[in-house]
């Protein structure tokens, strides 16, 4: 049975094989002058160190603290997010969707892995995985259970399948007991998952 699959050895040899192939291709492309290795390093550094969910957290915190900003964000998110300096690739057209006590939003890309890079960075593996992509649209409550999140039975769940170049950012509900907090302090409550809709923001006692 040539097709037989033994996941352990398979994955292992596949990985080292991929490693070699990636290295080979990078060498070829560099030698041909199609890519500049310094540009590659800068791309990696940007997404590994600079662009991440901290950006989105600042956007959410500002929306919590500043009603005028919140209104701008919900009306037209791309320029509102741009005010904080976040823009560009995989975030050319951003829509912010707001959670309320009766409505919970969740974002998925069933067809590939669309995700708002400028505000959340690159997506985690689970977001790109077949279990999440297959189930989020048909059984969002079941998926939330995998994340340990239970919503009231009456809460409406709205799933946004990112099928175009629009990227969605969930604005979670502001936790209770945060009156008078500064934006900076509020940003610490905003988790990545709460901006995808698979989690809720932290509460003040989680920070203590």
């Amino acid at each position: 049975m040539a097709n037989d699959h033994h996941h352990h050895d398979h994955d292992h040899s596949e990985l080292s094989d991929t490693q070699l192939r990636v290295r080979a291709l990078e060498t070829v492309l560099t030698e041909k002058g199609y890519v500049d290795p310094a540009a590659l390093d800068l791309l990696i550094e940007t997404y590994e160190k600079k662009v991440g969910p901290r950006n989105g957290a600042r956007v959410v915190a500002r929306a919590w603290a500043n009603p005028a900003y919140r209104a701008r964000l919900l009306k037209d998110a791309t320029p509102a997010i741009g005010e904080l300096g976040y823009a560009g690739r995989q975030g050319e057209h951003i829509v912010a969707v707001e959670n309320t006590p009766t409505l919970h939003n969740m974002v998925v890309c069933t067809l590939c892995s669309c995700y708002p890079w400028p505000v959340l960075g690159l997506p985690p593996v689970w977001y790109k995985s077949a279990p999440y992509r297959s189930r989020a649209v048909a059984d969002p409550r079941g998926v939330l259970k995998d994340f340990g999140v239970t919503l009231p039975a009456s809460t409406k769940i709205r799933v946004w399948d990112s099928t175009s170049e629009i990227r969605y950012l969930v604005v979670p509900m502001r936790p209770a007991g945060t009156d008078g907090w500064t934006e900076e302090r509020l940003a610490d409550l905003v988790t990545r998952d709460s901006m995808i809709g698979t989690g809720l923001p932290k509460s003040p006692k989680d920070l203590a």
Partner: protein
Amino acid sequence: MNGPQDLGGMDGFGPVEPEPNEPVFHDDWEKRAFALTLAMGMPGGWNIDQSRFARENRSPAEYWSMSYYQIWFAALERMLKERALVTDDEVVAGHSLHKPKPVPRVLSPGDVLKVLHRGGPTERPTNTKPAFKPGNAVRAKNINPPTHTRLPRYVRGHVGTVDRVIGFHVFPDSNATGAGENPQWLYTVRFEGRELWGPDGDPTSQVSVDAWESYLTPAD
């Protein structure tokens, strides 16, 4: 295409397993594969819809067994070979064996941040008016093109409500085959969970997709 990428509503893949403190990349080769894909966009000259089609247009046996960046890398190899920017013998040798083909531009380190910041907007100018407005009932057409499309199988044939007119955007179905941008009005369409999944659906759930005008027919 009704390929392995069109996962919405499939059963059997098991639970979602979030990884605590997940790193951005799991291995050095993932970083390189990611950066190579981004950096080759400019000299390679392909568009995002062509990249997506290169990723999804493979056997489910292969697609469902590969990791995320393995799929990216396989698509990059395919697009480079299709355009003869790299040849099989070069991939095997791990070195350039033939003269490079002329390319429009190479991404320089100085350009990286500018290019990322600019992104690739897909909105286009128009004098036309959208055929639908928010609140209209629309039916997603039953189309099954063998090539790239962004209308998932699970909404086809179903009736939803236009929620938002997004704008006039590049049409991926034609852009992916090199047949031009053919921009169209793009809408957010909301479907009730019960409409999509029948009595097995969660009555409190709704699903939105972004749908181009040619995916839709009036359902009023």
